[in-house]
Structures are given as structure tokens and as C-alpha cells.
């Protein structure tokens, strides 16, 4: 199956509902105020509740409880609140397919792991716009979900190959002559109307060196390195069973030294312990 065919099918994928689309639009409006964003989220009461729960989770560790969405937007920032809304949406669309062959819970854990790791990486290398890294990390493997949606058989074939040959998902796709999931992620995200930074970061996360001319080459490298570490510590499940490669190009670009990485890994483990709330977004909110 060719990329075009898959892309054609992507059109049939569930797009974020109008509220999430509006959230993305407001968060991207340079002149939006906190109230504007809060007003949009409030349109979906269940979303509001879940977003507020994440705002008050251990991951942010705010010194006091926040009860109002507009307050949350001011204190945590537009993009963080947008990210939370997007997380809730992604989680829901992932969990909706109950009959799927994939372990969605484990894949979601991988998404959150890379989101947390990427935001931490931004802090480590001194990249101010760390919220965009969170969302890019969150969505970097969304292409796998797309592939499974378009063709569960193909996904199963790739998953089987990576397991038996102990190779990465990316290599297995190559062996089966399939378009790689990173590119599918990119296409999916473009459709969702998220910033170019996010779509490109996801598109290049397995091949940072081939994106060296991109405006976002540093962001791509950060996602790549973060994905590598989350895979190595077995946080969640990415359907890759080996063959993880850390690109020297990415390390050089970011100026990462082994000592920094050791320190990073230690902090990442601590940070992931606080991210539990992200793993059970639906559970209570359903009731």
C-alpha cells in the first residue's frame, strides 16, 4: 500500500471534534486572551473537568489548587491548557476503538512518556517554547494509530516482524515496503491544524539527519532523543522490540554530552512518576 492510499484513508479518520479544533485555533491566535480559551473549553463540560484534573495533577505540582479554567489558562499558559485538551481528545479517540488488536493503554503510555520526556529535553537544552515539545512528543507516533485504523492487518504484520526480528517499527515498515509511520503522523497532524513545528517534529523523529534543512531540525532532534530514552526504559509500549538507534547527528546538534544524558535520564524517571494522572484520563471522567 502506498502513502497516498493511506493518506486518502486518513481523510476518513476522526478529526478532532469542533471544540478541540476551536481550542487549537484559539491557542494559535496571537491576540487571544485567557478568557477566550477558557470559554471554548467550557463548551464541553466533560473536557473541562478532565483538563482541570490534569492541571491539578502531580505532574505540574502547583502550590495551590486551581478551580477555574481561566485561572488555569493564565497560570499554566495557553499552550499547556491546549495540550491538555489535545491529550484528552487523543486519549478518547485512541480508546474508542475497543475492538482493536493493539494494546491502547500501553501505546498511550508511550505517547505520554515521550511527551513528558520531550518537554524535559527542552528544559535541558534551554529551548524556551517547551509546550510545543510536549504536544509533538505526545503525537509523534499517532501514525501508528492511523495505520492500524486504515489497515489492522498491515499493522499486525509490522508488529509481528518487529517482534520476531527484534527490529524497530521503522525498520519493519521498510522491510514490508510500507510508508513509515512518522510520515503518516505528520500527515495526520497537518490535518488537525496544529502548528508546522509539531507536524514536522513528528515526521522526522526517526530520521533527524534527513531533516537537517528543516526550520525545526532542533525540535526534531529533541523528539528523536526523547523517544529513544522512553523506549530504552520500557515506559509503555511502542510496538518496537529492538533496533533503537540514537542519532549522533541529533546529539551533536543539541550539544548533548554523556554526563548530561545520565542526569536527564534520572530526572526523566522522577518526572514520569508524577505523570500517572495522564494515564487514566477517562476512568473517572466517564461517570
Amino acid at each position: 500500500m502506498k502513502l497516498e492510499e493511506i493518506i486518502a484513508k486518513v481523510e476518513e479518520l476522526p478529526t478532532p471534534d469542533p471544540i478541540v479544533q476551536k481550542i487549537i485555533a484559539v491557542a494559535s491566535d496571537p491576540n487571544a486572551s485567557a478568557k477566550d480559551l477558557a470559554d471554548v473549553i467550557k463548551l464541553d463540560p466533560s473536557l473541562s473537568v478532565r483538563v482541570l484534573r490534569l492541571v491539578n495533577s502531580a505532574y505540574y505540582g502547583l502550590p495551590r489548587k486551581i478551580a477555574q479554567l481561566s485561572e488555569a489558562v493564565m497560570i499554566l499558559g495557553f499552550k499547556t491548557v491546549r495540550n491538555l485538551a489535545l491529550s484528552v481528545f487523543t486519549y478518547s479517540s485512541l480508546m474508542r476503538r475497543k475492538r482493536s488488536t493493539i494494546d491502547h493503554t500501553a501505546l498511550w503510555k508511550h505517547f505520554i512518556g515521550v511527551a513528558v520526556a520531550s518537554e524535559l529535553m527542552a528544559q535541558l537544552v534551554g529551548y524556551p517554547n517547551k509546550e510545543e515539545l510536549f504536544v509533538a512528543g505526545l503525537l509523534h507516533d499517532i501514525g501508528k494509530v492511523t495505520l492500524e485504523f486504515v489497515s489492522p492487518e498491515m499493522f499486525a504484520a509490522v508488529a509481528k516482524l518487529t517482534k520476531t526480528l527484534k527490529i524497530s517499527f521503522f525498520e519493519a515498515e521498510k522491510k514490508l515496503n510500507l510508508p513509515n509511520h512518522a510520515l503518516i503522523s505528520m500527515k495526520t497532524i497537518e490535518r488537525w491544524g496544529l502548528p508546522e513545528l509539531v507536524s514536522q517534529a513528528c515526521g522526522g523523529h526517526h530520521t533527524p539527519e534527513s531533516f537537517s534543512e528543516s526550520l525545526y531540525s532542533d525540535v526534531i532532534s529533541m523528539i528523536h532523543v526523547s523517544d529513544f530514552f522512553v523506549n530504552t526504559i520500557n515506559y509503555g509500549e511502542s510496538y518496537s522490540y529492538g533496533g533503537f538507534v540514537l542519532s549522533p547527528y541529533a546529539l551533536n546538534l543539541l550539544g548533548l554530552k554523556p554526563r548530561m544524558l545520565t542526569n536527564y535520564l534520572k530526572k526523566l524517571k522522577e518526572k514520569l512518576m508524577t505523570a500517572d494522572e495522564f494515564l487514566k484520563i477517562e476512568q473517572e471522567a466517564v461517570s
Partner: protein
Amino acid sequence: MLNQISSHRLYSLLSSFIREIMNATEPDLLLDALMRIFQRFVDCEHIVVLDKDLNVKKIKGGNVEIDEELKKMVRWVASSHSPMSLPKQEMFVHIFPLVKAGKTLGVLLAWSREEIVVETSELLRTFAFLSAVVLENLELYSSLQRQHMVLEATKNYMQRILDSFPQHIAVFDQDSRIVFANKGYSLSSFGEDAVSRIIQLVQKTFLTGSRQTLEVEEGANFYSIVAEPVEYEGQPQVLLVITDVTNTKEVERLKAIDQLKTEFVANISHELKTPLAAIKAYAETILTSFEMFDQQTLNEFVQIIYKESQHLESILEGLLDFSKLEQKMLILEKTTFDLTGLVRETMRSVEELAKSKQVKLELLTKEPVLIRADQRRIRQVITNLLSNGIKYSKEDSQEKYVRVKIERKDDRVLIEVSDNGIGIPKEYHEKVFERFFRVGTVMDHRVEGTGLGLTIAKQIVELHGGRIWLESEPGVGTTIFVELPVGGER
């Protein structure tokens, strides 16, 4: 919206900010620039900058209270590196971290009545990050400057200590250039020869990599010189310390002279006592038992008394000569005479001593050599040299001799007195000419003598404008050379 920015305005604000931070030479000026740019984007009533320990560093727009809740939020911002706008009593407190690569260097708090839109917030966050980079550099720069000042002060302090040393202290690099010197260091008081020896010492220290020492005598002063290898920034250097040890040396010399004088007095007493005892014993014998001796025996006794008194006289004369020479009161009475003849005569006078020691006296020169000098004094010198040669012969050896050779060389005469006696160890070659010194005091007490003979001989020779020196090997023999100017008429 209230704080919407036109790109034109943005560029001019950016330009001003860049200009200001470029010119900031200290953290304070940088923070001023940062506060100004905040003021231009947001209408702030107060701006406060906290340092990395969250203590107030700068305030603009009057004092403002930071309560416990706000403090907690500030700490959260500092640790999460995320900016925050906190609604507070109809106002907003905008909190921005100053972050450099994962490190919070400070926090900026701005109070305004207006909200900040997304774009402004992103921009201000970028400014805060940019400032942090410059801030860190400035802080590093000022800490470097402080360190530099401390270093400078330490250096001056050490220099003062080293300057107060009486020693000359200097450090040389591999090209023998001085890289450090204390105030007292100077080679100007040394002669060319000493300077080149000192430089050689430094070079030798570089070559061997080990400590080298040298003693230099310059005029009336003695210097002890030590060169020691040191290392600076991986480069070998040499530390040179020159100490004036004149006072120490002078004391040592006086002590040695004192010691020699004590020995001399003991020696001379012994020397005087021997002939005196003989004279006294024979005189007493004659007085008490005069009639019991026959004419011949009496004659022998009186002969002995006469000879011993002559010996006594010669010792006393020697002493007198010595003291005259010491006080520079000796006046030469020069006449022209045949040196060969004088030596032959002198040999005859010590013949008996030679016989008693079985030493053969030989004069290798037959032809007369005329010289103008003080005959009596020259005879004294020759006598001394001959009797030394005889006295210091090897007791158990066969074929003992003392040979004299006289040679005329241009306007000078060289007298060689050589023997095959016990010889003189090399370290004493110079010392034997010094006052009171006898190799015997070190080596042998059996030989009689005042220890003044060679000293007097040397002074006499030098008074004549000549030189005296020796070549000797222990166990083989000694040759003494006396070189005299022919003098006067030629």
C-alpha cells in the same frame, strides 16, 4: 487587544533591547534593560527582579509586598521554567523565569492591570531567556574579574614577601630569560666571569633537571648560589637563589686562624723546648760533674750546646722574620751573586741532616747563574726547601734524594727542588703556603718544624716579585718551583 504589537514597533523595541544588552557591562545594567523592555510591552506598575535565591535584587515603581502565596508561585516558576500570570487583587502578577540551559538565574515579577496576550507572553519569555544568557556571562565575567583581583593581590603580597628577602631570587625560563625576580635581584655586583658561571649553572640545571650549587668569591664577598628546577604551566623553569655568605665565611676563616694559632703556639713551644732542654741538660751535667769528664767529652758536650743554641737562634730568627713579614717591615738588601754557588753552599750546611736521614743531595746545575736579590733571604728560602725535602722523605725507602735544578729563562730564573718523599695530597697544595699550616698537623707529628717555613719562603719570593708553587703526588714525591726575576743589571 490592549497590547497588540505591530511588527514595526516590535523590530524597533528589539533593536533597542539588543543595543542595551550589548552595552551592559554589569548585571545591573542588563536588568535595567530587561525591565525597560517589559515596561514597553506591558504597562507595569511595579517590576521586581529576584536573584537565583529569590532575594529581591532590583525594584522599579516602588516597593511591593511579596506574600507567601506569591512566593510559592515564584518558586514553582523557578523550578518549572514556565512563565505565569497570576490574577491578584484586580491586578495581574506576571512571573517570568530567567533561565539558561536548565538553570534558573533569577525571576522577574511584573504587576499590571492588563492581561498579557499569547504573543506578548511568548516574546517576553524569549527576552527573559535571552537576558539570562547574557546575565550568566556577565556574572561569570565579574566573578572572573574578582578572581583576577584576588590573584593580583596575592601576587603583590608574595612579591612583597620575596622582596624583603636579603637573597637575590630569580626564575628563568628555558631561553634563560628572567620571568620573575625579587627587588634585590641583580647580577651587576658580579664580574663577567661570575655571571657566566651563574648562567652556566642555570643551564646545567635545565639539562640535568636536578638541583645545582655553586660558591662564588667576588671581591671580599662570598656567595652561595643554588639553582633548583621548578615547573610552571608544564614548562620547566629554574629558580635561582643567591645568598651572600660573606659573614659566615669570615667567621669560619677567623675560627680556622684561631685554631691554627693555638696549634702554632703548642708547636713552637715544643720546637723551642727541644734545643733548650738539650742545652740545659748538657750545661747541668758539665756544671755538676765538670772534673769527671775528659777534655774530649767536654768538648763534645759544649759542641752540642753550641749547635742547639744555634738551632734555637734560627727558630727565633724565623719567628722574627715572620712577624716582620706580617707587619710588612722586611727590607730586602739586594746584591748580585751566583745562585748556583749559593745553593751549593746551602746544601753543605744541611749535609748533616741529610746524612742522618740517608737522603742524597744533588745539584744538577753546574754553571753559575747570576741574580740580583737579597742573598741572605734567598738562602733562607733554599734552606727551607732543602730541609723540607729531607724531613719529609719516605722513612723506609732506598735511594732517597733531593735534587735542585736552576734554569735561566729570559729575564727570570726557575729553581726546581724535587724529592721522592711522602708527597702532599692535592687538597693541601695551596694550603701549605698558608700561615701555621703543616700537612704534618694533619698527617704526621714526628716531623719537627714551626709550620712557618713555606709561608716565609712564599713571602720572600713574592717580595722579590717572584712566584712559588708546587707539584706533588702522595707517595711519589714533590717538586717545588721558585721563579725569580733576574733583577737589576742585565
